[in-house]
């Protein structure tokens, strides 16, 4: 049995793919989309404390999924938190590590986090870090005495985005809501 070893077409041309359910897709799919991150047009940087900001990219309220870029602007810490869902992150700029693990993430590297893990995010890089994340489920935040403070999930992230937009007269971008 042969397997594909290269893309079967390299023609810069739209090929009409046979698919029996196009009409339903057109009617009921939320549709793919592009959210720009180079500018603040699609989504602004929303402060997360003095040294960090979040650029919200997507919210799926049906699955509790949220996607964003976390920017820590200089050396800093995001305190210990516990995940109840699955996290995928890509380091875009700078570097980041967790006090619990022996690796340091650099640009292009992939970070996977699984339910039940708690950890303490640190960037020692002079320019901090930018992290793209695709995250599912609650994250429980603790203070430095291990007192539980708050559970953040898709609603916290939507509220973080919408509160900032309201306060700054920025219209909400419907593209962020899958």
């Amino acid at each position, binding site marked *: 049995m042969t397997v594909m070893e290269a893309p079967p077409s390299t023609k810069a041309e739209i090929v009409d793919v046979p698919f*029996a359910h196009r009409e339903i897709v057109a009617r009921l799919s939320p549709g793919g989309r592009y959210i720009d991150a180079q500018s603040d047009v699609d989504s602004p940087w929303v402060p997360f404390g003095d040294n960090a900001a979040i650029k919200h990219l997507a919210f799926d309220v049906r699955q509790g999924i949220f996607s964003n870029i976390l920017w820590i602007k200089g050396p800093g810490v995001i305190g210990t938190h516990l995940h109840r869902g699955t996290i995928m992150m890509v380091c875009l700029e700078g570097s980041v590590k967790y006090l619990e693990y022996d690796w340091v993430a650099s640009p292009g590297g992939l970070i996977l986090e699984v339910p039940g893990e708690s950890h303490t995010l640190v960037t020692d890089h002079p320019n901090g870090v930018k992290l793209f994340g695709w995250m599912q489920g609650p994250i429980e935040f603790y203070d430095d005495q291990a007192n539980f403070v708050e559970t953040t999930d898709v609603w916290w992230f939507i509220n973080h985005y919408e509160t900032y937009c309201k306060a700054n007269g920025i219209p909400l971008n419907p593209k962020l809501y899958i």
Partner: protein
Amino acid sequence: MGTMTAPPSSAYKIVDIAEPYLDLIRRKGQEGTYVGSSEAESPWVPFGDNAAIRHLAFDVRQNVYCNVLWIKSPGVIGTHKHRGPVWAVGLEGSFRYLEYDWVCRPGDFITETPGTAHTLVTDDPNGMKALFWMQGANEFYDADGNHVETLDVWWFMNHYESYCREHGLTPNPQLYL
């Protein structure tokens, strides 16, 4: 550290839970759904001569579809391959896969994982009913191993909606997550 060993409240009343994002959840959230067992809420849609599917949920964002499969008498659903995960619970009768050594009976729970291909058989005189929760692509092959069609949430929706159209039924919005 102590952990809950029983429900922390047995009060027969709605307890007001602190919810800082209540307005947001009301405005942007998706309500859960209820699909009762009557055919008025979701009909049995024929799947060949000896089987029918009762569709229960479609989530187009995750390519998830949930339904009850009913095979009415001893029969086979030919070899198919999953590209996503499946959970199922036996409801009536029994079924098995030619590939495995277990038989799923009412109350039994099974999972199927991406990459597995298998051939569903019921030997029970009354066939089987089971609830399936499936994600992703489901590839069907003919008896000679030729790929025939890849089914996913769109096929299942089309299966439901085509039947509704042909029978003058209004699609039930509770099925659309």
